[in-house]
């Protein structure tokens, strides 16, 4: 396990093997082997791109849904969570402390579509007691990446 390698990849999954090797002071073969190893171990779960869909015309809506669920005697919230996460519309599922049990982030093309998914799929699901749907109005920062505007480099050309 190479924590520094993980941190670099977490920041930018597109660094080349060559660059990673240089930045970490190890060989390219070592970089490749370590990434494979960490994938096998399940430490690395995938590589994705953070897209600012709102910049396109394409419709993009997401909502955070609070679910209250009746826990089962043996498995607690496990069964409901695992069932919910199978839907393609579902981006994220967390078990929460506090006022509700499961936090589900759902994405869709329109408000209507998301609302229908909640109303027709989540709410009637066995064990689900209540739902509360909060639509995302604007994404400012996601996965450490700032989505609003460009801060740019405002350093004066102060050279010394």
């Amino acid at each position: 396990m190479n924590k520094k390698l993980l941190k670099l990849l977490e920041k930018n999954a597109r660094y080349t093997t060559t660059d990673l090797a240089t930045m970490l002071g190890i060989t390219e073969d070592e970089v490749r082997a370590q990434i494979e190893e960490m994938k096998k171990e399940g430490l690395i779960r995938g590589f994705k791109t953070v897209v600012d869909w709102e910049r396109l015309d394409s419709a993009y809506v997401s909502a955070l849904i609070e679910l209250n669920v009746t826990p089962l005697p043996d498995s607690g919230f496990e069964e409901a969570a695992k069932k919910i996460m199978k839907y393609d519309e579902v981006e994220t599922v967390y078990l929460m402390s506090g006022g509700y049990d499961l936090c589900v982030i759902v994405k869709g093309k329109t408000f209507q579509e998301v609302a229908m998914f909640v109303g027709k799929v989540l709410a009637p699901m066995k064990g689900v007691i209540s739902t509360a749907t909060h639509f995302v109005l604007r994404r400012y920062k996601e996965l450490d990446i700032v989505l609003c505007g460009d801060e740019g480099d405002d350093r004066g050309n102060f050279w010394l």
Partner: protein
Amino acid sequence: MIDYSKKLNSKAAALKPSGIRRFFDISEQMENVISLGVGEPDFQTPWHIRSAGIESLENGKTRYTANRGMEPLRKEIVAYMKRRFNLTYSPNEALVTVGGSEAIDLAVRALVEQGDEVLIPQPSFVCYEPIVALAGGTSVIIELKSDNDFVLTPEQLEEKITDKTKVLVLPYPCNPTGGIMRKEDLEKIAPVIIKHDLMVISDEIYAELTYSGERHISIAEIDGMWERTVIVSGFSKTYSMTGWRLGYALAPDPITALMTKIHQFAIMSAPTTSQYAAIEALKNGDDDIKKMVDEYDTRRRLVVDGFNKIGLTCFEPLGAFYVFPCIKSTGLTSEEFCEKLLYSKKVAMVPGTAFGDCGEGFVRVSYCYSVEHLKEALNRTGEFIKELKGSE
């Protein structure tokens, strides 16, 4: 008409203007210049530190502080120096200044007078010579050597000492070379300093930025040196706080007292908001330092490797955030190299000669930029070198 040349201070008028001003002007006029010139961190000041500054404003902390700086801040500075560099000072031996620059100015003004000689190893930061000149002193340059990783040796030191020598400026970790002085290097020069009864102004502004397992050692930690050392440092590089203009000096009480006297007349006190932010930085900023150092380190490796691959040899800098590749293989002078590179590839670097004549044959490259920015600059520089070779 007033003849201003007769009115202006002749010492100030005689100061050489900074050699890189010209490049600055050229690159300002060009579009899409990719700069490796900037000498300040690209990170923002960590939010909790900014927040402490904001909170102080909200609480109406908008007045002067004590001349030498707020007591809680001086206590934190002293605790920090103990914790991270094993140096022992009392809060009264700390003076809070407007950036490390003011601390340098005060140290020189407190120690140097007409006729005194000040030893300045170069290549190094550009302000020492002018400040010494304004104080009436004479700068004596020690030319550091690349084949020695720009370390100051006892022989080089001894060679330049006269009966007028009073102060040695020790600029490590070094801007622009990235060179450091290890404990064993300091132990070699300390006896020479003590033998000739010199004082040291140790510019340690980059003390936290060292790599590959190196930790900065202050000369004040070497036996017999604490009492002859003025440490100047600040918050700019350590916590990405360049714009807050806050630094400090640490020295035995008689020196700090005199520096405080000058500071009191010239400055009154350092910015109050910045002092509140600095307290937060010292109390809770150790993790921020680690994060930034790790990030600089990966970039450093990338840039050193990049230059060596291009064919511009580059010794491994272990401090600060600069690399200092040698461009002698191109047959160009540092200025020619930078100018051609700027015009043909729109990449801006600083000629080594900006940091002293012995910087000839080198360029300074800052790696205070994102990996993507650095890679683009390296690519363009690589093309430039290929084209140079092709046209030979």
